[in-house]
């Protein structure tokens, strides 16, 4: 019997050691951003302004059933945000310089970008960040969230945040447009981040407008990305101190 019971006892002990208690969060330490001189000459830099239009009638926003978490339900009614249209413009579109910057290297900000889990939604829903820049993920809710990133080129991660106020800092190392986030606890929570090697990006806001500044003169491929409608690209040439107007129209 001993030959049988001994392994069983060992397994039970192993299990009890593995099942330690207490909640904890170990935030990864962001790698220090390499210091690079800013190649942008402010005397010649231009810009890009414009708006995102939507042709067609988007589906009406649906009320999200959040009964699976009483805390989320108490935060009030929440609607789907796949199509946020204001003044005929489409919001939450990520616009960025896809090509044309050549071999230029840009300094990486050390100020973190914050992704907040608040009211059982992500804020912001769509945002940009530079590779190497810290991303601070914050739980402002009095409920649990898991933050699950599903990149293709960067490292996938899935972290639990059981308590309000917990933060997790993550650094994406490789440019990638877009990296989706989801919360597997609350399956309605989704967000997307565009990770770039440069700072020339924007997210369309009220009226679908966007603004990209400090762009060196040159010819660029500009891409606009929407979570449901995919991508569109346009070529644009910026002269010295020139601010170009650019408009994208997504069709339903």
């Amino acid at each position, binding site marked *: 019997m001993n030959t049988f019971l001994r392994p069983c006892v060992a397994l039970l002990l192993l*299990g009890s050691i593995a099942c330690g208690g207490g909640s904890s969060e170990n935030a990864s330490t962001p790698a220090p951003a390499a210091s690079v001189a800013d190649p942008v000459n402010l005397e010649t830099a231009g810009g890009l302004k414009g708006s995102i239009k939507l042709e067609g009638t988007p589906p009406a926003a649906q009320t999200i059933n959040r009964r699976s978490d009483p805390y989320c339900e108490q935060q009030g009614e929440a609607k789907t945000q796949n199509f946020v249209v204001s003044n005929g413009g489409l919001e939450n579109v990520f616009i960025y310089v896809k090509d044309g910057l050549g071999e230029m290297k840009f300094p990486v900000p050390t100020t973190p970008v914050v992704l907040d889990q608040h009211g059982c939604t992500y804020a912001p829903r769509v945002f940009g960040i530079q590779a190497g820049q810290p991303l601070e993920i914050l739980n402002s809710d009095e409920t649990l969230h898991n933050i699950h990133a599903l990149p293709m080129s960067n490292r996938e991660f899935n972290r639990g945040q059981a308590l309000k106020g917990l933060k997790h800092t993550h650094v994406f190392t490789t440019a990638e447009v877009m990296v989706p986030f989801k919360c597997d*606890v609350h399956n309605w929570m989704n967000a997307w981040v565009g990770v770039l090697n440069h700072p020339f990006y924007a997210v369309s806001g009220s009226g679908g407008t966007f603004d990209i500044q400090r762009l060196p003169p040159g010819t660029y491929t500009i891409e606009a990305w929407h979570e449901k409608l995919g991508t569109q690209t346009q070529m644009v040439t910026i002269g010295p101190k020139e601010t170009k107007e650019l408009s994208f129209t997504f069709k339903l």
Partner: protein
Amino acid sequence: MRLHLYAVLVALSTAVLIFAGGLVTSTGSGLSVPDWPTTYGWSMFTFPLDKMVGGIRFEHTHRLIASTVGFLIVVLAVWLRLAEPRRWVRRLGYIALGAVITQGILGGITVLWFLPDPISIAHASLAQLVFCLTIAIALTTSAGWKRAYSEGGPVPDDRILQQIGTATTVLVYVQILVGATMRHTDAGLAIPDFPLAFGHLIPPAWDPKIAVHFAHRVGALVVTCFTIATTAHVFYHHRPRRELCRPSALLLTLLTLQITLGALTVLSQKHYMINSLHVVTGASVLATSLVLTLRTRRRSFDRLAGSRGQDETYDMHRDVRPARGHA
């Protein structure tokens, strides 16, 4: 007898575990608890109930049931070791214990590695084997098995039935493997209509997801044919034998239910409850087919025991292990 009842309890709890696992996959909750074996840093047994919200309800409940089933199987293996005279039945207990431990580790790995398809499919497939092992233990510790179902005369040694029954059981398991692959590769709605496929008998376009989905449908057809052949053979040639007719009738009933649930899974756009019932009913089809097949081969176990100098039929009223030397 108590050992048999306990083995039945273990088998039923394993079926509940499979249903709970189906709920986890069907609700997309597999990663709602990112850590393992802990739950958000807590020991899984001290995780506060008020924090079981959203997808955590499914994933954490699955872990708790899995731990319970694991404990029940440990007790079963120890009980068999102490009370079961047949060495091969005791071995079934050890194998079930090893399988359930492996299953737990696979479950942990699949969470920590973000649900890689091969690991998730292996986890789903091994679950069925654990269930089959508990079913086999429950069957072979039953009074009917021990007395070799002797009320209706000698157990028939019908080679055709044995072969077709075995083939049916193997095919059901293969069909479950294809189903698990379909679930974990998100191909459950790759063909969105039923009974046709994109309005045709054969899909007009193909990709890997459509292929695995269509293979599951074809598999259902093949399993149905084999099941009808097996049960028809039983009803035609062995009608007086209740130990064969009862599982045959149950098998046909479960298969009908399973095909209905499969159709409803597609038509309901993978409603999580229907989807999970489809998983556990599939396991029940496999278990019933296994019981039928083992019963058709009951005499083989006498020969197996005889060749090893063991007495397969023994005093069932003394549910204890005979003294060494008796075997």
